[in-house]
């Protein structure tokens, strides 16, 4: 499978001094392939999250298309796009993203039930074990630390084996050991056939990348 961005751009309404809009992402051409890990770095505010959310079908672009196997995501109805996201996409958002009324394990298995898949209990347990949160399976998210929540959302994204993974600074609040582990797990996911898109400030991440990208003031550069 491939996800192709063509002239994908985002403008926000905002007074920037010289204009009354902000070009958060200049037109981007980019293709994500199965089995490939892309790593995007760049300064804060350069437009990384904006690009990621557009690719992940969560933010309609001002211009351009993002097409999954030739089908533009944003030409679909909301229900159609949501179904597609549930089936093929997994997102590890930048902020906190636990559903507080579900336990850790329920959070992790929820996306599969949305996609109508069998609960991937085995894979979930294996990943939780590796990331050291298996004993937290029946705990409420409100009782977890930031790093534990982050690891929960990583397992939640990866357990059901999605075709596309979008990770927005997945290692931001993790220690060195867990950072290396997480990047390794994301790389494995790519090797198993997923397309992985990681936004990170982590220098080590470059070593895992098949494609390394950098963003600066809304413009995307291949390195």
């Amino acid at each position, binding site marked *: 499978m491939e996800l192709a961005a063509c002239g994908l751009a985002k403008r926000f309404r905002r007074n920037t001094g010289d204009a009354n809009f902000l070009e958060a992402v200049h037109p981007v051409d980019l293709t994500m392939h199965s089995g490939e890990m892309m790593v995007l770095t760049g300064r804060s505010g350069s437009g990384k999250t904006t690009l990621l*959310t557009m690719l992940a079908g969560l933010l309609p672009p001002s211009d351009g298309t993002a097409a999954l196997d030739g089908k533009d995501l944003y030409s679909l109805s909301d229900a159609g796009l949501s179904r597609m996201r549930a089936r093929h996409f997994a997102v590890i958002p930048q902020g906190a993203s636990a559903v507080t009324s579900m336990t850790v394990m329920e959070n992790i298995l929820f996306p599969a039930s*949305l996609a109508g898949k069998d609960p991937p209990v085995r894979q979930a347990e294996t990943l939780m074990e590796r990331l050291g949160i298996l004993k937290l399976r029946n705990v409420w998210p409100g009782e977890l630390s930031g790093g534990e929540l982050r690891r929960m959302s990583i397992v939640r994204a990866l357990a059901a084996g999605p075709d596309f993974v979008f990770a927005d600074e997945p290692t931001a609040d993790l220690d060195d050991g867990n950072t290396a582990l997480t990047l390794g797990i994301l790389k494995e996911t790519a090797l198993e056939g997923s397309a992985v898109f990681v936004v990170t400030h982590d220098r080590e991440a470059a070593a895992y990348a098949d494609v390394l990208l950098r963003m600066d003031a809304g413009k995307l550069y291949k390195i």
Partner: protein
Amino acid sequence: MTPRKLPMRNILRHPGRTASLTVLVAFLALSLFSGSVIVMSLMSGLRSLENRLGADLIVVPATSRGKIDPEKIYLQGTTGYYYMSASKLDEVRAMEGVVQASGQVFLASLRADCCSMPIQVIGFDPATDFTIRPWIGERMKTDLGKMEVAAGSRVNAGVNETIRIYGQPCLVAARLDESGTGLDTAVYCTMETMAELLSAAREMNHELKIDGDPAGVVSAIYVKTHPGEADRLAGEIRQTRSPKVTVIQTRTVTSDVERSLGGVSHTIAVLIICVWLLDLVLLTAAFLLLGGERRREFAVLRSLGMSRRDLAYLALKEAALISFFGGMNGIFLGLLILLPFSGLIEQALGLPYLRPGWPTMLALCAASLAAVCAAGPGAALLSARKLSRADIGTIMREGT
């Protein structure tokens, strides 16, 4: 956890939020349910009063008017006694335009004979009666024998029990249907029995003034007239002397009641509408306010693959569940208030009050619940719309 079970889980995991919304919804149910029960009770009270009265004119001794308001006996069950010679009955019966005339004798029992409060004993003449027998007949096939009584629904004595009235044992031969009026606290017997009771009462209570033979007195004369003759006959009867009498036209009693009933129902309806408007505004505001806190939660669910429709469904189903709980609570509270205190409500309103039967009550419960289950999600609509429309990309970046 599946999307279908999520609404219930959200409700259970947020008891504070759930409780506050439930209270607001319960008020909707309580006001609608109890309001309509009260209005219906008043209407059936009036209808039963009209049926039970059955007479066009009621004639009582003039002196009694000062002491006791005869209207009160029918509407509220005030007990009293006043007598005149039965010759008055013959005089009235002989008048032109009278279809039927029948006498009744009233006696207030002493307390403690059977009941915690004094009860009204009403003697009637089975041969001429047309106001009591149709009603008693519904419950009793054979006629009342000597020293037998039929007990009103609020008299605390079962069939075949013996109660003592002024020391005289009386067998309860039947219990009557509820009428919602003062008639419910009375027992009924024939004139023959009444004469015995009057003699006994005169022995025990020297203030009871009966001239002559107790068998020869009546307290009230019930008159059925030819159509359109009631006004003329009332005037004619008022002219008669020895003794002077007061004539009550039942149509004025019931139309008085009807008028105040109209006022009360109107007030209740306005109250219900005010409560609903206020409560719906509050409820909508509460849903919006609580929805504000849930923007991030909904954005997360959306990022996991839920569609706008899924989210709207989630929000509305939560509202519907809360409405159901709240509605049940409100109705339950309504029953708790209405069932034990219907006597107090009747007293406070001063109108005949007859609670509808259980089938009607159940229908009212169901209708109130249905109304609330529609109103709750209705109030949540705006919030559900806002939550499901929100731009996820933006919310997801709004920090932690």
